[in-house]
Each structure stands twice: as structure tokens, then as C-alpha cells.
């Protein structure tokens, strides 16, 4: 296991180099001049030229790439063109906001999704199943910005129960609407995956054996079937968590949440190249770490993976 983990971590390096290189060349190809984002509506060519020289944008693409790689080797993305702040500082300042939102959204997604999925599988073919799956289809299909706007309208403007937006200095009331908005699609998907995975399991002989032994149905479902149905659920949850941690652009914009998603969007709109490169690199690391954690958790959930045995090999 340790050997596998080290191998996976070493694989991070070429992947990160690839991500950074693709980001560099994409930004080079895209139209738009970062210097023009810095100077307002009225400027003179001389100032533009001086800024371009200072930012090495007057050099050939090869020289710029070499300069970029040199800085990348030191994990230094430099300072934002727009704010002048070191890029890593900005990312570390924004990440806590995103982390908080992601954890809350994930908790909602897991609790709601798995409960609804288990319930639907348990009452398979009945009203509960149909309602749960109907709601989940709506959840998957509903655009985030639409749900966000509806929730603000209902809970803030009409019912005056929750604040419409902002971070509110960390008050949990401010977290509820954005977390729920971010979680909805994921929760709906987790519910569907849980249900189908559970249905596969409940048809297995060991479940029938457990029932025949007189194990209570709730225990059969939660302890036996759910545990074995967890692998695909973990995969979905892990991927969603990775994407939540990379910043949720729409949710963060609607709810004026100062996280990484808005930081990245602002950077893209202003062609703030160091900030975009730093943000994309950070997201790549987050995704790889989450994926590694998901893979390692398979072994924890399923002893067959841990011991290298395959199902049916005995």
C-alpha cells in the first residue's frame, strides 16, 4: 500500500507539469492582453510597453515558457498582475472560504443523498422510491443559479429566515443557502447511485442469507448492503468534493461568497495570468489528492482490494 501511495504521489509531478504547460499555452493563445486589463479606459502606448517589458510579455513564447518553468520549479507563481499580491497568498486566503463551503455542501450531499438512496432502494417500486427519484431528477436538472435565486427569494426576501449572501464573519446562517445550492445536484446524483448500487446488492445471496437468518431489515440494508454498495458512492462523492474544493464559480457569485471560484473567475476575466496559473495548479493538486484519497479509501471499505483478492477467486 505504501509503495502504491508513493508511486501515485510521484506520478503527480508529470501530471502537474502537463497541467501547468497546457495552462501556459492556452493563456498564450487566448485573445486579450493582460496589460490592457490593468490600465483603465484611457492609456498611452508608452506605459503599456513599459508594463509589458516588466511582465516579460514582450519576450518570445519560448523565453516566456522557460521563465515560467524556472519559477514553477520553485512553486512560485509570482504576483498577481492586477492586485500586486503574491498569488499563493491570495489562494491561501481564499481557500478557507471555499473549504468551508465545500465541507458543508458535501455533508449535505452525503446525508441527503445516501438517506434518499437507501430509502428508495428499501421501498423499491413504491411511492417513496418514485418520489425520491423524481426529486433527484429535478435536483440533477435544476441549474445552480436558478436554485440559488429561488432559495434567496424564498428564505431571505419572503420569509426573512436566512441572510441572502455574504460570508457574515463565519456565522453558520450564511452558510446554509450556498451550501444547499452547491450540494443539490451532487445529493441528487448520490441518491441515484446509492439506490442503483443498493438494488444490485440486495439481490445478492449474502443479503438473502442474512434475511433468512432473521437479521432485521434495517441492519441488512445499512450494515450489509450499504457497506458493499459504497464503492461507486465514494467515487462520486470524491469527484464532487474535488470540484467543490476547486471553487464553485456560480454558487460563489450568486451568494457573494469570497472563495476560490470567484478568485479564478476574476483572474480569467482580467487575464491575470499568474493568478490563473496558480489557481489551476492548485485545483490540479486538490483533484489529485482527492483522487488518491478515494483510491486509498477503496481498500479501507473493501478488504478484497486491500488483500489483493478478487471477488469470486475463492
Amino acid at each position, binding site marked *: 500500500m505504501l509503495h502504491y501511495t508513493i508511486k501515485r504521489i510521484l506520478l503527480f509531478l508529470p501530471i502537474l507539469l502537463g497541467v501547468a504547460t497546457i495552462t501556459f499555452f492556452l493563456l498564450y493563445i487566448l485573445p486579450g492582453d493582460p496589460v490592457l486589463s490593468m490600465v*483603465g479606459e484611457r*492609456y498611452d502606448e508608452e506605459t503599456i510597453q513599459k508594463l509589458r517589458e516588466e511582465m516579460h510579455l514582450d519576450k518570445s513564447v519560448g523565453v516566456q515558457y522557460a521563465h515560467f518553468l524556472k519559477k514553477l520549479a520553485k512553486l512560485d507563481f509570482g504576483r498577481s498582475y492586477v492586485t500586486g499580491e503574491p498569488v499563493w497568498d491570495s489562494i491561501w486566503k481564499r481557500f478557507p472560504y471555499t473549504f468551508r463551503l465545500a465541507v458543508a455542501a458535501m455533508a449535505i450531499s452525503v446525508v441527503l443523498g445516501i438517506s434518499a438512496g437507501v430509502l428508495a432502494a428499501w421501498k423499491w417500486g413504491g411511492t417513496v422510491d418514485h418520489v425520491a427519484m423524481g426529486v433527484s431528477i429535478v435536483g440533477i436538472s435544476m441549474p445552480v443559479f436558478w436554485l440559488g435565486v429561488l432559495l434567496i427569494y424564498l428564505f431571505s426576501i419572503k420569509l426573512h429566515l436566512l441572510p441572502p449572501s455574504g460570508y457574515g*464573519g463565519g456565522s453558520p446562517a450564511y452558510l446554509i443557502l450556498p451550501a444547499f445550492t452547491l450540494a443539490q445536484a451532487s445529493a441528487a446524483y448520490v441518491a441515484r447511485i446509492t439506490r442503483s448500487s443498493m438494488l444490485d446488492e440486495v439481490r445478492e445471496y449474502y443479503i438473502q442469507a442474512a434475511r433468512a437468518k432473521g437479521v432485521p431489515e434495517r441492519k441488512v440494508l445499512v450494515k450489509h448492503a450499504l457497506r458493499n454498495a459504497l464503492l461507486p458512492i465514494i467515487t462520486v462523492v470524491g469527484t464532487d468534493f474535488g470540484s467543490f474544493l476547486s471553487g464553485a464559480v456560480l454558487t460563489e457569485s450568486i451568494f457573494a461568497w*469570497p472563495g476560490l471560484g470567484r*478568485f479564478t473567475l476574476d483572474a480569467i476575466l482580467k487575464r491575470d495570468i499568474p493568478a490563473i496559473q496558480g489557481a489551476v495548479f492548485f485545483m490540479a493538486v486538490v483533484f489529485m489528492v482527492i483522487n488518491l484519497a478515494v483510491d486509498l479509501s477503496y481498500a479501507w471499505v473493501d478488504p478484497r482490494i486491500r488483500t489483493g483478492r478478487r471477488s469470486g477467486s475463492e
Partner: protein
Amino acid sequence: MKKSFLAYLAVAFLGCGGGAQEKDVLCLALEVSPNKLDPAYVVDVAEGEVASLIFQGLVRFSPDGEVIPDLASSWEISDDGKRYVFHLDRRMRFSTGRRVGASDVAFSFKRLLSPDCRSPRKWVLERIKGADAFSEGMAPEIEGLAVLDDSTVSIELEGPFRPFLQLLAMPAARIVPEELFVDTKAHSGAPAALVSNFSEKPVGSGPWVLDSWERGDHLMLVPNPFHPAGSQTLRAIRYRIIPEAFTRIAEYESGSLDVLKIPSAELPRFLGNPSLSRRIQSVPELRVLYVGLNNTRKPLDDPCVRKALNMAVDVERIIEVLANGEAVRAAGAIPPSLKGYRKRPAYSYDPGASRKLLLEAGLGDGMELDIWQRDSPEGNRILEAIQGYLSEVGIQVRLVKREWSAFKEAVSKGKVDAFFLDWYADYPDAENFLYPLFHSENTGGGGNRSFFSSAEIDSLIELAHRTLGENECYNLYAKIDSLVYEEAPWIYLYFPKSFEVVSLGITGYRIPFLYLARQYEGVRKS
């Protein structure tokens, strides 16, 4: 290491500081987050508004747009309009407690113009004698700038320039404390470059001090204890960064925002609600909306074609439907609230005459036109209407959306046929709507993005710069505006109005003529 990372995650989840709403704190919203608050680098409206609260200039704008004393309590202007002597108000202090001296003024101006500073706004001071030589590194001092004594500064211009005082009221000409910029370069005689954290922790002598700044979330300003104005009745101003219009409205309606700028699409709903409409204030914006036509591209280089485009669009109807009738049709670039504006007949909506002009220009078979825009609700609505009107005279319009920097690059380099843009006054003078927009010196990045070029207009604008008599000068501006309008370098649209709704309990609030004039003096929140 592991412990500290876990502690970081724990803090990340449990809370990141900041504060909830408080009493006597005026809560306002900004659409975009300011990037830098160092006056030398302030370029947009959000930055300008906040920097104007923190820093003082020699002069500033009153809520009516007049130039009034700020750091300077009085000034004299020589008869030839070239020499200005400013006497500083000796009561003015930076938020550190130190008195603002004449050397701070000289330092701030030298810093803005210095080659090391690379300020995009050095044009604000470039009319000072010797400014060019200094900013190119050819001279160690600015010839026209002199400190006469501890509280007197003299400025000599290359030539008379009537709106010079207004330039001095702009954020770029605000005064910073010299000691915060001293580094090794200062000893070599050159002003130091941007001190990296000055923008994060700006120190000025304005009525407000930056107390905290969470990027992307909020800025909190508290009164400058050393400012003599003494009319600050608020304990703090809290600017929240809220990018979405819907969210800003929701924040206002749930009572969390004290002032809301009403988006034009929402205006009928607000005006139709009696309890809200009583609290709505409006002011004509110093802004003109237009579709710039690239005057160097065929067939748009023909004034008849440009006039035909103006006659093909029913601007009155666009104002009625899309601006709720609350705008003034533009028959020139100078807004109605500025001296130099003259009411003149606009191009009449006449598709038949438009088609005839196009036919005479050899465009009987119609033409294709790309209009570039950056994505904005206002632009989308207006351009879709224009697209419809132009198709009626045989012009097939393709709307090209680009984000701001790609848009600006293409438009400033003259790579597009036409583009939708607005021009917001840097300072409230007709000159700011003529020289940047139509003088051939400013083609491209300078503001003249329609690449309009006329030797006659250039010389008239230059003459107006030298004309000191107020009436004479504004008559000249009116004449220039009229001559340019006859050439139809743009499809002229309208001058919009700005509407703000103020929450119950706020008294003394008034929308200023210009965003730079906001000071929140006498505003109370009960």
C-alpha cells in the same frame, strides 16, 4: 507541519474572521472588488470611489461637481492660466497623525510621473511643465513643480489648460505620505516604485481610513480621527462586494444594504412600489452610450454611410422601452448636465432616407457589420434592438461578444467594424468628452476608438484648451460637439440616468454628480 496544516483546515472550516452588520455602519455594495487602492494605480469606478474617501487631493469635487478646496485651502491662478499657487490647509493630517506638507504634494506628483512607478494615469499630470522629460527619465526634477515653503506649492503648466484643477481632483493626483515610500531608490533621487503593501494598507489624509479589507468580501472604512471636517456622523462604512445584481437587490430588500443602485431592468418595479419610490433618488449620469464605428474601415469611412446608420435606429424608442424613458437622447457627446451641452436636433429615425443614403454610397445590396460588445445586460438589450433596426435597411449585424480585455485589445487596435461602449467622465468637464474621444492624438487606447480624425476638430480642441474665458470656451466646445456630430463617427445613443434607493433610517444621503465626489458627510443611520 502536520499539526499546523490541520489547524489551518480547522480555522478554515470554523470561520475566517470578519464581522456581522453593526449599528451606525453604512452598508453599501460594490459590483466589483477594488484591485488596488494606491492612487497611482486606481483605474476603475470602484477603486476611484474608495480611494477618494481615503486620500485627499489639492482640490476635490463637491457633490454638484464643482472644484472645491481639499488639502489646499486656497489657490491663485496667473492671468495667463499657466501658473497655479496652492496654499495648504495646515490642519490636514494623514491618518498616522503627521501633518501633510508641501513636500508630500511634490513627492506624490513626482512619484506618479516617475518612470519607475509605471502608473497608467500619469496623463493626469502630464500638462505640468517638464512632466514629459521627467517621466522619460531625461530630467531629475519636474521643471514646473516647486515647493515654495512648507505649505505652499507652485505648479506651472506647459500651456494654459482650463480643466487643470479638475485633473487635480482625480484619484491619481491624490497625496500620499512620503515616508512610506522611502527605499534605496529614494536616495538616488528617483521616487521609489510601488511599495507592495501600500495598496493593501493605504495611508491618506482623507475623511476615512481603511480599517479592514477581505478581498472579494468586504472593505471597512472608519473615520480618520485626524481629519478636521468633523462632520462624520457614521461610525463606519462597510462596502460589500456583491457581483450579481439579483443578490444586491435581495440584500437591499432584506434590509442588509442601505443604498442600492437600481438596475435599469428593475426600475419599473421599484418606481411602481409607493413605499420604495419615495426613497428613490436619481441623477443624470456623466456617461454617454454609443456604438463606435471604425471611421477608417470601408464602407464606414464614408460619413454618409455613418449617417445612414444613425437614421436607421429609432433611439427614442430604445430609450422608451429599454431605459424606461429615463434618459436623454444624445445628439452629441457632451452630457446635458455639463456646460457646453446644447440641445440640437438629432438624426431623425427614417429607414427610407437611410436606405437612400446607403444606395447612394453603393450599398444597395446591403452590407454586413460586426458589432463587438462585452457581455453586459445593458449592452445585450440595446444591441439586439439595433440589430433589428439595421436589418430593416439591409445591414446584417453580427453581434460579437468578448470579455473585457479581448474586447479592448481588438477595439483599441482598430480590428473591428463597430463596437458598443460607454464613456464615463473622468472629471465633469465637456473637454473630457471631446479631447479623449475625438482628438486624433488619442486614437486607440487614448479613448478615440472610432479612429475619428479631423485636422479641423484637432485644432479647435487645442484652441479650446488654451481658451480661458468660460463662455468663449464652452461655446467652442458646443461648436466642436456639433461639428463632430455632423460627421457621425458613432451611432449616438443616449445619456442615462442613475437611480438609487435608500433604506429607511438613512438621512442626509444624496447621490453626487460624480462618483469621485462621494464623502458621506452628514449621512446618518438611525
